[in-house]
């Protein structure tokens, strides 16, 4: 089984979010970049498939050379090979087209991407890859078993979950639940050493239109101070929620 895990290079969850160039670009100054958390769950799930079902795991990212440390980290966690599509990730549809091209070229059986990246929150790359490659697709996936050519996937739905049966080739929009938080892997020294020798292939992008364009960013208005209510005066809290906030 050939698995492709899509890795987004995103600011760490605790990063301060600022913008530069007239609020048109994310300010990377002082920001730590990590593997997108939703992708990390998928990467660990792929490692299990490698260990138990002899899968071969490639990781891929669309981005400039600055994203390579993130791919190396994925190699250190245990992926066999990495691919970087050499173009800035400017919008989801274009990224999906680049990734779909990698999927077709490599004839992958299973593609796991995070349900969304924690920076732009587009939430569309896995589904678009599925649409572009005409593969089966399960989004918000919280459980996945593969047996030969068939697969069983659990999807989180509003208010519960559902179990789906499907087959390879399959695209997964993954999230926490594919594996648990405690099961995520941290690269060890041996993994880091081995990662240096693993192939990281740079491929040039295919031509693609810009279907959407990011114009600028805005930060939410500063919030007013909290109104504190004494624990002996909860009637006042109910009064505020009813008459001032009008939410009860």
């Amino acid at each position: 089984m050939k698995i492709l895990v899509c890795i987004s290079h995103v600011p760490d969850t605790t990063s301060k979010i600022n913008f530069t160039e007239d609020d048109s670009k994310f300010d990377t100054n002082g920001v730590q970049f990590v593997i997108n958390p939703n992708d990390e769950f998928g990467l660990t799930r792929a490692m299990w498939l490698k260990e138990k079902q002899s899968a071969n795991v490639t990781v891929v990212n669309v981005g400039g050379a600055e994203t390579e440390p993130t791919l190396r980290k994925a190699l250190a966690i245990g992926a066999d090979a990495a691919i970087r599509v050499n173009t800035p990730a400017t919008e989801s549809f274009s990224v999906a087209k680049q990734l779909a091209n990698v999927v077709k070229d490599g004839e992958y059986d299973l593609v796991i991407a995070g349900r969304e990246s924690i920076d732009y929150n587009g939430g569309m790359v896995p589904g678009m890859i599925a649409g572009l490659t005409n593969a089966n697709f399960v989004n918000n996936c919280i459980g996945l078993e593969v047996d030969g050519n068939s697969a069983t996937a659990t999807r989180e739905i509003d208010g519960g979950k559902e179990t789906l049966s499907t087959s390879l080739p399959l695209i997964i929009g993954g999230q926490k639940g594919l594996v648990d938080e405690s099961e995520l892997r941290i690269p060890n020294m041996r993994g880091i050493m081995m990662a240096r020798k693993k192939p990281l292939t740079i491929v040039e992008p295919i031509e693609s239109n810009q279907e959407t364009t990011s114009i600028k960013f805005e930060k939410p208005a500063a919030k007013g101070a909290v109104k504190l209510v004494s624990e002996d005066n909860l009637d006042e809290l109910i009064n505020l929620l009813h008459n001032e906030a009008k939410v009860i």
Partner: protein
Amino acid sequence: MSVLVYTESDQGVFKKAALEVASYAKAVANQLGTTVTALTINVNDASALGNYGVDKVLNVSNNELDAFNAKIYADIIKQASESESAQVVVVSSSADSKYLAPLLAVGLNAGYASNVIEAPSNTSPFTVKRNAFTNKAFEVSQINTDVKIVGVSSNAFGLAENTGSASMEDFAASIVESNVSVESVDKATDKVTIADADVVVSGGRGLKGPENWGMIEELAEVLGAATACSKPVSDLGWRPHSEHVGQTGKPVASNLYIAIGISGAIQHLAGVNASKVKVVINTDAEAPFFKAADYGVVGDAFTVVPQLIEKLKAFKAQQ
């Protein structure tokens, strides 16, 4: 030319988001000087849509569509969009709509903006504002394609009533083949979901153990609220993962979010920031959540929450 809106339903009844996306579609249609067509699949009674600005309803009725299937549903929306020559297709941010929208975008070769919070600021170029960086910023984004797909963020645009009535038509959709089929659904039918809830009551590690969740559930019941929890609570197995709200959990965009015994880690705040009013109850006056909240009570949840339940019951009885 028209604006097409997919108004989704569950068991034949519109989901809460359906009327909000219809309201949004009407606002876009007004800007474009055109009409709104809604697509429904297996809905018992679609007449409510007329009150939210829909001019025409295309009803698809087919037993084979009782279980949601993203590929099949996306293809039906595509068929309706082409038959109506839709310029803009509006969908919600429900789990199902976020599942089908990227497939629809590929099918229609349409640019898709998700998590949109306002009516377009301009229709040429088509410019929308959306949530990004997990509610820590907004992105102004332009859709360049002929057909545009807008995913409306839950509870961001709200409802806009309109006088009018919608004409009803049956829409004969063809069903594409799909190799994904539903084996079983595990869903609590008696509880309001986090996605649909106006009020969410959420508990954190300050509650000390799963045995203390009775008061959270009781408070939620009094308020008709959904229950939720912080990441440590779901990691510890005190509550199911499906209740975890935050950056790697579910996003919350309710009118009222009540956080009990949650300190307010930045990842948690990011996931709940889209809620309109936030109340925090915590013993630690220095908890970061107080900086993000609208109302706060510094006090022990084990004394505050039971009192709050009693007072709310009395308040509700008066209403």
